[in-house]
């Protein structure tokens, strides 16, 4: 038996690292439906969860999977699911429910090519915008994009922390290559990484409001069966959780969903910058593409071309402020993505006007090659 209790250095897949990360974070419920290329996450948790006193359930579809996860989370358990593009699409309505009802949960999307059934066994980063705008209505999303197997572990832990801290669903966007690639990972000792639990009420039930507007805008969350007997609904609701049609209460609810994330974005932004001090050209890449971009940067630096790189690990909320600062003296940004151009629009929004933005994309089911990026650097320098 491999467990989180023993600090081990182990060769493992990205998907396995997500399993280990989830267990480390204290996840004790998984509801899922088989889909390539994410299945190893379900398989790993089917094996491990009962050993930790947790529960694994294979539901009848992805809609039911995320529903069961939300139901479990309401009983006070850390809960998650894992899927890929088609399943992520099916989950969108209930992910919206989790935003609205402010239920912590983690959704790992091991991305593959799309649209539709697309490329079940091939890589893409084409759900970047879906992770932000996938479900209907106004809301603010949190999504992270690991770029290595070790980061699959760490970011799964972080995703649970964000979910519990902000009472919201959190999306982990990995992809087919990172999910299946093997790298050495040292599993941290318990206590080495921070693990956060959701805020619990410290008031008596008669004072409790399930959606109370607090200074952090995040409300304490009682579990079902603890005597607090609240109502949870996907209808727009007041602070007590009851449906409302009062314009002031409607605005207050949507503001709560927005500002509990926007105001505390600093806690969420994770961003890696390399060799940006003197860089005239910036490579902007995330997830699997960042690995090729880094290699291309080194190739360029060997030729004394001043190239730096920015890699957002948190892609939602988008690091507007940080990027505005960092791109101030940059002439060119090359945005590297495995899609037809998604995060590039965010860069266009925040980069200074003097900065030229160029895309370097690939969407043929293959990962991008450092040489392709290097050649683009030579073209645009």
């Amino acid at each position: 038996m491999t467990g989180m209790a023993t600090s081990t250095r182990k060769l493992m897949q990205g998907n396995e690292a997500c399993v280990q990360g989830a267990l480390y974070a204290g996840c004790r419920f998984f509801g899922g439906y088989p889909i390539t290329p994410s299945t190893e996450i379900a398989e790993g948790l089917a094996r491990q969860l009962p050993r930790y006193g947790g529960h694994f359930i294979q539901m009848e579809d992805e809609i039911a999977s995320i529903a069961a996860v939300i139901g479990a989370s309401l009983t006070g358990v850390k809960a998650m699911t894992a899927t890929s593009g088609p399943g992520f699409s099916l989950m969108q309505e209930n992910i919206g429910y989790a935003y609205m009802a402010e239920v912590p949960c983690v959704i790992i999307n091991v991305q593959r090519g799309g649209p539709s059934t697309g490329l079940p066994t091939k890589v893409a980063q084409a759900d970047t915008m879906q992770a932000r705008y996938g479900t209907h209505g106004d809301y603010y999303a949190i999504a992270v994009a690991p770029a290595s197997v070790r980061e699959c572990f760490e970011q799964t832990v972080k995703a649970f922390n964000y979910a519990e801290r902000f009472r919201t669903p959190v999306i982990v966007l990995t992809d087919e290559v990172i999910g299946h690639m093997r790298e050495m990972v040292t599993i941290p000792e318990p206590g080495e990484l921070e693990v956060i639990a959701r805020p619990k009420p410290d008031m008596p039930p008669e004072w409790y409001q399930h959606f109370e507007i607090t200074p952090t805008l995040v409300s304490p969350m009682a579990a079902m069966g603890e005597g607090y007997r609240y109502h949870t609904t996907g209808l727009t609701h007041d602070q007590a959780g009851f449906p409302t049609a009062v314009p002031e209460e409607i605005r207050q609810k949507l503001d709560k969903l927005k500002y509990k994330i926007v105001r505390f974005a600093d806690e969420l932004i994770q961003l890696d910058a390399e060799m940006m001090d003197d860089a005239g050209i910036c490579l902007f890449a995330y997830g699997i593409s960042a690995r090729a971009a880094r290699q291309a940067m080194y190739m360029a630096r060997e030729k004394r071309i001043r190239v730096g790189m920015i890699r957002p690990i948190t892609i939602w909320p988008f690091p507007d402020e940080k990027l505005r600062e960092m791109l101030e003296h940059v002439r060119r940004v090359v945005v590297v993505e495995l899609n037809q151009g998604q995060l590039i629009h965010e860069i266009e929004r925040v980069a200074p006007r003097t900065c030229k933005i160029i895309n370097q994309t690939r969407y043929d089911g293959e990962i991008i090659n450092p040489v392709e990026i290097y050649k683009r650097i030579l073209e645009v320098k």
Partner: protein
Amino acid sequence: MPSTNQPSDVTHQYLRVKKKFPNVWCAGCGIGVVMGSIIRAVDAVGYSRDEVVLVSGIGCSSRLPVYCDFNTLHTTHGRALAFATGVKLAKQSLKVMVITGDGDGLAIGGNHFIHACRRNIDITTVLINNQIYGMTGGQFSPTTPRGAYASTAPYGNDEKAFDPTALAKAAGASYVARGTVYHVQQMDKLIIGGLRKKGFALIEVISNCHTYYGRLNKEGDAVAMLEVMKKRALPAKAAGSLPPEKLKDKFLTGVLWDVEMPEYCEEYQKLIDGFKKEKEE
């Protein structure tokens, strides 16, 4: 006169009286009758309100939980059983009930319905069958009889209706019953039976939507529809001895199926207990 044992007093104790009333239902709607029955059943079985969870989907019937002082979870359309499955599996001490309708439970939620039955998970489901979509304005549902009129079946419904009890039995539920909003005392007993059952229990309750179904099919007001219900309901126990011509236009009521089968959460718990034991040794 002291009246502490009157049934209405029991129901009033469990309502979120100050917060939510008046309710959304039309005057004469059968759903309120079912709500009373559910509350009396919970009270009779002796569950505390803290341990009871009412889960519902979308539609007229799914508005029921909000009025009740339990843990209440009003979910997305058709998904109540899937949410409830997560609740029950994660915290088995909770007494989980699902309140659904014919559209919510059998059309958009049909897949979850058969799989919840198949798992035989310990959830008591009350499916309020008024044979039409009420909330959206009288469209035909999976239980609208062939030939009946609905706002989306202006020339009569061409589709065959589901029998939810037959579906539940075939899919693996361990307790299946049918009642009506006319036969209230029987309904109380059927829901009590479902709550006491370890396993998936379905109680189909035939209800009236006089606002849409009654009006479009010229079946009259709430009282007229209740009278039809009274005429058509036939206790399952009595049906066996009757000749086929006497069963025409009737539907059977009472407990239709009641068997002992392994319950999903208990089986999973055995697995957890096994690992726990292994660790201790």
